[in-house]
């Protein structure tokens, strides 16, 4: 009986192993060799989609792009995730990855905007308006746009007045959703997010002066895995070229 049970367990273990191998093998083959895999910060998505279309048409290479949170990509890349290029939302995480990639280089500088999806004029005074219940922002501990928003609030000297109104999203994408769905009356968001909307949905926004907050520099680096990949290296060159700079600027970013 025990012998039987033992062999049963073993049979299942072997089966499970075979299934795992069987399921993972085709996936590994899926990405053609002339393609590059990119990890891209979610705030850069609209610009990246433009860049991808242009680049693929121009070169014939294929890009496979994953969008996500910079902190999570950082942890995944450290654990050997198969990315060739990393476009982060900050400068810290790329600098920590230098050992397994090139020296990071800034590809875009984010612009902070105070936004309301409703078309009423927004200015710094709106933050203090009595009918404003909630102001959405990214968590300053987790996201550069959050730190920037806090800088602006401190610079205006209204931190104590608005503390009870602040709601914090995990990242600037969530802050944007809070405002867009009307759950928050105002949101500290990225200008690039507003410009990605159709013109009639852009509402009203105020751009704080960029000297009032820490610059939101977004760095990219070519990871060791991509150094031999022609698609990856040519995209990395393309990213800093004239055409790409034009697209990035039109998407609501400043250029280095």
């Amino acid at each position, binding site marked *: 009986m025990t012998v039987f049970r033992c062999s049963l367990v073993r049979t299942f273990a072997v089966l499970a192993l075979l299934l795992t191998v069987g399921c993972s093998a085709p996936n590994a083959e899926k990405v053609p060799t002339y393609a590059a895999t990119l990890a891209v910060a979610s705030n850069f998505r609209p610009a990246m989609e433009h860049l991808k279309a242009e680049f693929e048409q121009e070169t014939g290479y294929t890009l496979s792009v994953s969008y996500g949170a910079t902190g999570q990509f950082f942890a995944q890349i450290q654990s050997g995730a198969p990315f060739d290029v990393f476009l982060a939302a900050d400068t810290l995480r790329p600098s920590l990855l230098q050992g397994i990639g090139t020296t990071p280089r800034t590809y875009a500088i984010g612009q902070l905007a105070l936004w309301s999806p409703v078309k009423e004029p927004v200015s710094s005074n709106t933050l203090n308006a009595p009918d404003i219940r909630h102001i959405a922002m990214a968590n300053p501990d987790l996201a550069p746009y959050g730190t920037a928003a806090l800088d602006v609030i401190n610079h205006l000297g209204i931190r104590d007045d608005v503390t009870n109104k602040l709601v914090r999203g*995990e990242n600037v994408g969530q802050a944007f*959703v*809070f405002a867009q*769905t009307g*759950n*928050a009356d105002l949101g500290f968001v990225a200008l690039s997010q507003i410009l990605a909307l159709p013109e009639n949905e852009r509402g009203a926004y105020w751009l704080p002066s960029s000297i009032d907050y820490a610059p939101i520099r977004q760095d990219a680096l070519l990871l060791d895995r991509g150094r031999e990949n022609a698609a990856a290296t040519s995209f990395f060159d393309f990213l800093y070229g004239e055409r790409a700079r034009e697209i990035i600027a039109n998407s609501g970013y400043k250029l280095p």
Partner: protein
Amino acid sequence: MSPPDAAALLLTLKLACAATLILLVIGTPLAWWLAQTRRRGKPVVEAIVALPLVLPPTVLGFYLLIALNPQSPIGSSWLRMTGDTLTFSFSGLVLASVLYSLPFMVQPLQSAFETITRKPMEVAASLGASPWGAFFKVAVPASARGFLTAIILTFAHTLGEFGIVLMVGGNIPNRTRVISIAVYERVETLQYAEAHALSLFLLVLSFSVLLFVYIFNRRFPIHVG
């Protein structure tokens, strides 16, 4: 444990208690009805109750953001009644938890109620018990283990809630910053010592609660009939 983390823990316990209590009140009649009814609509209700088991919390969170915002019918009436919004508030989290943990209360209760035959209920009625009396004197004691399982599972499941709170909470200290959010934040900012303190506490607490249930169930087997 730092004061903000202790506050998050306290808030989480408060949330789990509130959600469990409300679900006990809503879930018991619902489970009883599901256990007894022969109506055609029963599978539909059962499927709705089980939905939170299958749906990703992000789906629930997304719909709650839309359904509860201050311009929506629910959100605006709540705002008029209480002067507070449902999203980014403790009440909103309670509501979300009630939806999210519904199957954990209803399903164990329903299974327990299904084992009660009509016979003892009819005997109780013939001895002069009102339907309510029969329910509390016969059905509830006979389903004690089902109640215990349902309450513990609901409580524990609410303690571990993360995805929905992340989406509708807004991470406000003392209002919506629950323990899972606090752990997430600590890990993301590489403050592993604080993350450990919180996580270990939650781990020990969860294990003790579950251990208690299993020991209790073994020591005091409930014999019916």
